[in-house]
């Protein structure tokens, strides 16, 4: 289970993955209609295909890769939300966009996302496995079966951890 530790290996992988996922998301976006939602599953799969074709592949198998992916998407989203929040609070000159529709609608989601991230960090000290499940399922869009494979735990454990994490996170968010 060295998979869960923030090893050097893990952070190296994250470093490569981070810009790649953003880039892939952009490409995906340039192809898609702009009101189309961009779900992580497709993105993560594409990232895998792209990176496994490269020689500089630094991870051993797909499971490992996907496990890091969830964490990576979470970090990207959180940092995006953080930048936008900072800008909203008046941090520096933000060019006024005449069309603010899309951003406006996401404002609430951004706040939730940051709170969710904080709670996940707290949950990490209580039960790290729960956080992994949330990352894979929510941020990476994987099914319980896939998660059971990646994390090498039983399907019932995945379900149990997911149920518990959801209830706890929900409770904390609505406190």
């Amino acid at each position, binding site marked *: 289970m060295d998979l869960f530790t923030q090893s050097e290996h893990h952070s190296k992988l994250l470093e490569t993955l981070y810009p790649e996922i953003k880039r892939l998301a952009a490409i995906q976006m340039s192809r898609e209609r702009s009101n189309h939602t961009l779900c992580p599953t497709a993105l993560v799969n594409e990232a895998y295909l792209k990176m496994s074709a490269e020689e500089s592949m630094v991870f051993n198998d797909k499971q490992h890769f996907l496990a890091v992916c969830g964490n990576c998407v979470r970090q990207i989203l959180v940092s995006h939300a953080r930048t936008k929040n900072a800008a909203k609070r008046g941090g520096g000159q933000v060019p006024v966009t005449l069309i603010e529709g899309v951003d406006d609608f996401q404002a609430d989601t951004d706040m939730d996302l940051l709170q969710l991230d904080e709670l996940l960090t707290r949950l990490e000290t209580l039960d790290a496995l729960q956080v992994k499940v*949330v990352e894979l399922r929510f941020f990476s869009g994987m099914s319980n079966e896939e998660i059971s494979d990646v994390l090498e735990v039983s399907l019932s454990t995945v379900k149990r951890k997911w149920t*518990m994490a959801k209830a706890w996170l929900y409770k904390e968010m609505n406190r």
Partner: protein
Amino acid sequence: MALQGNEPVEADYFAEIEDLFFDALELPPNQRETWLKTKCKDRESVYTEVQTLLEAHLSSEEFLSESPDLRGIAACPDLSGRRLGSYKVVEEIAKGGMGRVYSAERVDGEYEQRVAIKVVELGNIEAELFRRERQTLANLEHPNIVTLLDGGTLEEGFPYLVMELVEGQEIDSYNVSNKLNHKEIVSLFGTLCEVVNQAHQQGVIHCDLKPANILITSKGILKLLDFGISQSLIRTHDKQAEGTYPQGLTPEYSSPQRREHKPPHVADDVYSLGIILGQLLIGGLLPRVATELLINKRYKQIDLDKFLLLIPSRELREIVKKATNETPEKRYISAHMMGEDLDNWLNNKPVQAMSGVGKWPLYALSKNLMRNRNAWLGLLLFGVLFAAGSYGWNKANIARLNADAAAAAKKVTSDLAAVLSRTQPSISVQIELTGLALNNIEEMLQKAPNNIPALHVYAYSLMRYGQLEGHPLYLSKENATVASQYLKHANKSLGEIKAIMLERDIDRVSANDQNGLIDSKVIDADLLRIDRLLSEIQIYSDIEGVPHAKEVGLTQLRDVEEKLLALDYTPKSRQRKLTYTEDLAYLAHARLLIGDIEVSNELLNRSIAVLNTVNAELILETENIGLSAKEVKRREGKNRPEMEILKDIHFLNSFIKEQKAYQAFSKNDLSTASQLYRQIMIGKRGNDVELMLLINRVSMMQACIALKQNNEGRARQLRRNVLTNLNDLLEDHPEAKRPAGLRERMSDSALSLVEQLECKDPRFIVFPLRKVTNTQN
């Protein structure tokens, strides 16, 4: 898991919670609480924790069920520092709905060049169409349209354009920071229309015209951005728009047809031009203006009616209105036509957009007058100089000269009167023209001094000028002072005439036409008239805060009245009769103001008697020549002075009736009052400012009567009519203080209807609403 007595390690504690949570979930819902209570005896915090988790569980069905949308992070990355072809991106300089704009420089060593790179950060763009449009733009060579240099596609898939870098100010902020006046805005806008038109002629429609796309460089050159690349982007949006507004367009500036995703058309650009012009004329940045005007925040749709009302000039408002008409066919058919109409405005030619407004022939004439103001006056002056100059200065000719000078002076003023009556220019234009006419007469008087008829015409022109300056619509303290000075000057001229007559022992002077008999009584009546006007201005100034002016003025008027009646004056000419009627009517009005209804009524009866003699004469004349009523009307139309007289009669008639009606109203004789008011309303014709004010007064009084009769609905309707009239009036005379004040009070929702209409004390009637009479005597 018994951890009692020990400080629980947090993770262990959490694991216990988890166990309890799932154990409880195993049980049927109604047993969970009891079971949990026994389990958590004396451990209140554990109980609460599990209990809330169970509750959360029930509500968290949907929670986290959908993965987050990655659209936000999918945005095109910042390109700063990236190399694109021969260019290296420096930094982001602008951000818009379609994407970002960067500054960049050429780095292939060929030559130094700073450029702008615009990245279209939209998904699913129609590549082929976009490429084609890029080509069109590249072909579109125009000094006022930004040049396209290059283009390509980022590795992320977003297309970009390399363009000439324009450093300039957006047209709206340029307008604000340079405080452009209307003429400057319109002439700048003329260029814009031409540029847009030329692009249209090459088959390119902009589709997204807005201030952000119109820059003015430091050298004052207008540059249009984004021409020709918008259609493919808009097509993309239109396809994606499923009930939501395409994010790339700027809805404030988009025509209704664009909002409905109809195929782009020249008329869409005309619409946007109209909105931009209106915005510039209002003088703000649209976002500021818009927030107050948005009727639909979601789609940023502007309330056009309100928007138009903010435009200060009526003609320009009509131009904007035409350009932004809901129906494309009713807009200018091209940007060129719009530019041409703006040109009309600049050159004082009739504006086409006004043709839908009504009164078009009159409007066109008045524009003609404005444009040819100098030509007109030149013509008038020519007559005078010819008369005065062609005889030389030998003694034998002096008598003749005098007669001609007088005739010429009269001609100046009567021509002027005819022009003014025909074209109804604004008061300020009338003042200007009268001032110029005065100069001409003065010049002539220097060559033929002591000419009684000419001096008399001069005095009348001075009086006219004073009346115009002292017009109740505009009267301020400054105006009052100027007006008084002119009236006193007129007084002095009349005094000179008297002195000359006394010196030469002349008791009457014929001015060579049937109206123009001048004797000492005529002059005394004129002098009293000046006194009356001066007192009225003084009373009026009381509103402006001069203490006791009103009381003093009213006392003076009683003095004038006494002297006038003592004068035993019987006017001979038609015009003089009308002037006398007016004098009496206003003196009656002054009596009414102090509540002296009896004397007021007496004066009114006198004035009616005089007015009736004029009416009788007119009827007799028409009967004598056997003309049909229609024919009379037609002749009236041709014979301006006649028509003026009829207008005067009509006004005086209404004015007198109004006073009679008011007298009845104050005696609570509502049926007589409403009958008289109805007569005025039925008989009303023409739309002179003075008459309109009177009509408003009548409507307000009718509303007051309706209120007394508990007919609130009718009162409200009448109040609305007055407000509409006031709006019209203020459109023509935006700086008129009195109607503006009235409108403010009447729309003040804090006041009751009775207060709005001032029904309790409507004594201050139209006074000193003056008919500015003709200078002919």
